[in-house]
């Protein structure tokens, strides 16, 4: 009776598979069951792991907070974290896993604009929400996808506000630019340079460095020879610390101006006194007196024992937008939720947040300067006036002549 035995085995196996599939579907389907899954993609290993850490810690904190308050529309949120290493291929595979195996309702991420742009189409096709809390490439929201929302200022907003402030307050005649040789750096230098040029500033040097460089003396020495009034730099914290240290090494004590990538306590530790006088954009400051920001900083410190950097704030606000959006819609229907998020106006860690038609958060950028307060390095907010904490100090005063 070998045949009937085989048939029996097949039937049993088929039953198990069907039961497992049914169990799986009821467990993960957002419309039924007691949990909703969301995914976070971030570089947790590789050269940008330090920024991924901020994103991961903020996401875990945000999800715990949401669940502590009873979840969203009665559902607990479950966080699935995927490492991308800032690699588009790895990230695409990770997102496929999130969409097909984990059946997530929304994706949060990522750090690198290239990666966000690479995974965005498949998330949009799957009709899932994409919250972009960190990557700044202007194109991400410019494409006008219905389900994409960015919760931080984009590259264009950051860079033009930076250039405007510099031209207005520092009144430079000449400027030099130095940036990482990728989309982020090239776009940053183009926007800043065009803006400054349109206001009558002459660009006397434009230099680039490759990812993974540690020595910037060639670039800095050329900039020193061009003798500009200000130097605009687009770099991550590691490169920025090296750039400032090496600039001072070769005797280049000009006003350095940077984008938001250097807003963290770790950067100040890394660059130490060489950071003194640096002016940069920030979209979140832990010292901010705004109640929503103060509450976030308190919770983050209690949980992780360190101050959150601005990337953490971007992620925190993305989860706020997600929660408030679903609650406002009163349903998990993704189209209705996307519409609801577009009509939100809420207080996040970065201040008042509301989105434009394309899903870009209209947030205010802060301009800060690294100064010494009570013997310790601190980012002092110079702009906007509502948050101002101190006055700008020119490098001649900080470093003498």
């Amino acid at each position, binding site marked *: 009776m070998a045949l009937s035995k085989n048939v029996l085995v097949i039937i049993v196996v088929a039953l198990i598979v069907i039961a497992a599939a049914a169990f799986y579907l009821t467990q993960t389907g957002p419309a039924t069951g007691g949990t909703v899954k969301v995914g976070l993609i971030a570089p*947790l*290993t590789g*050269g940008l792991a330090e920024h991924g850490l901020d994103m991961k810690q903020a996401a875990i904190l945000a999800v715990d907070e949401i669940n502590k308050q009873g979840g969203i529309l009665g559902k607990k949120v479950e966080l699935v974290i995927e490492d991308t290493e800032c690699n588009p291929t790895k990230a695409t595979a990770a997102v496929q896993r999130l969409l097909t195996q984990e059946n997530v309702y929304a994706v949060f991420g990522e750090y690198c604009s290239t990666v966000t742009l690479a995974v965005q189409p498949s998330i949009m096709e799957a009709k899932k929400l994409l919250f972009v809390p960190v990557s700044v490439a202007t194109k991400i929201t410019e494409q006008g996808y219905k389900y994409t929302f960015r919760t931080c200022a984009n590259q264009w907003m950051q860079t033009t506000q930076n250039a405007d402030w510099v031209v207005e307050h520092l009144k430079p005649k000449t400027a030099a630019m130095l940036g990482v*040789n990728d989309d982020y750096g090239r776009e940053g230098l183009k926007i800043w340079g065009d803006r400054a040029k349109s206001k009558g500033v002459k660009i006397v040097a434009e230099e680039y*460095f490759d990812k*993974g460089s540690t020595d910037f*003396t060639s670039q800095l020495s*050329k900039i020193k020879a061009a003798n500009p009034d200000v130097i605009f730099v687009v770099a991550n914290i590691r490169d920025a*610390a090296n750039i400032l240290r090496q600039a001072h*090494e070769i005797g280049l004590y000009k006003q350095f101006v940077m984008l938001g990538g250097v807003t963290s306590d770790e950067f100040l530790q890394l660059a130490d006194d060489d950071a003194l006088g640096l002016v940069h954009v920030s979209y979140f400051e832990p010292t901010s007196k705004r109640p929503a920001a103060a509450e976030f900083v308190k919770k983050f410190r209690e949980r992780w024992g360190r101050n959150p950097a601005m990337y953490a704030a971007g992620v925190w606000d993305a989860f706020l937008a997600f929660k408030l959006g679903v609650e406002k819609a009163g349903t998990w229907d993704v189209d209705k939720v996307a519409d609801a998020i577009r009509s939100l106006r809420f207080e996040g860690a970065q201040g008042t947040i509301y989105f434009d038609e394309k899903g870009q958060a209209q947030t205010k950028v802060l301009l800060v300067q690294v100064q010494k307060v009570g013997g310790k390095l601190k980012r002092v907010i110079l702009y906007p006036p509502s948050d101002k904490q101190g006055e700008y100090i020119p490098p001649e005063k900080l470093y003498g002549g």
Partner: protein
Amino acid sequence: MVVQPMELLEQILFGLMIGGIYGVIGVGLTMIFGVMRLSNFAHGEFYMLGAYFTYTFVTLIGGDPFILAPLAAIAVGAVGIAINRLLFKSLYEELKEAKGAAAFYFQDLKFIMLTIGLSILFVDLALVLWGPIPISIPSPLTKHIVKLPGGLSFSLARLIAFVVAIATLVGLYAFLKFTKTGRAIRATAQNPSAAMLVGVNIYKIYDVTMFLSTGLAALAGGILGPIYNVYPTMGLDVVAKAFVVVITGGMGNVIGSILAGFLIGLAESLGGLFLGTEYKQVVAFVIMIIVLWVRPEGILGGGRK
């Protein structure tokens, strides 16, 4: 564009200083190739470990990183010996049995995969042990700026790193040239079977070679740690450069590697100055390609000195 003489001098100076460090990293890599005939893709991670060990010693014991870097180099060298005995030894055994060129390359492929795996393992280990946030090793010497007439300046730390690099290279050369162990290393490099016949314990020589190679990489990491930053993937950023130095200098050629180190350091600085800094990284590879084209055996040939 007009290049000012001071700018040129500054670039030559910084190029030579970096070149010395390239030499130290490259020499370690070339020794493994010359003596053991194997390509070590985890070489950059020993450089990274040297920096982290130095940092750990500075925080545990206290003191200047430039004094503790040699100590870290010895510790990493010991790790090198351990890896040699635990992982690499069985591959030499197999290599000894292998016959013909095909077998040789096949063994090397195994070794390449093994060391690439080690490299990933070490990076992740560093991530777990020291965290992803980059750190700088505090030293008062980085803050001390040496000022030369004409507006030239550099930190004392960079100068010391250069002096340490030169002293190490000279010391290594003397060791290989004049000591008994040095002669045994050279003999093993030339012909392992003949060396064995005249009583050289080649496994001991492999231990010494691994110790020197990994220790030199670690020393470079330790003395550069206070000048640049320390982070888990820092080794991946230098390993390609180290291979360029080794190939340009002639694989297995110690003197060639030292010269190639200086050549590439200088070429990068001057290339950045004349061609534009975005081409700085390309210059090293262009030089390697040209050298391979004109002299496939490297500037000094593959002589296993």
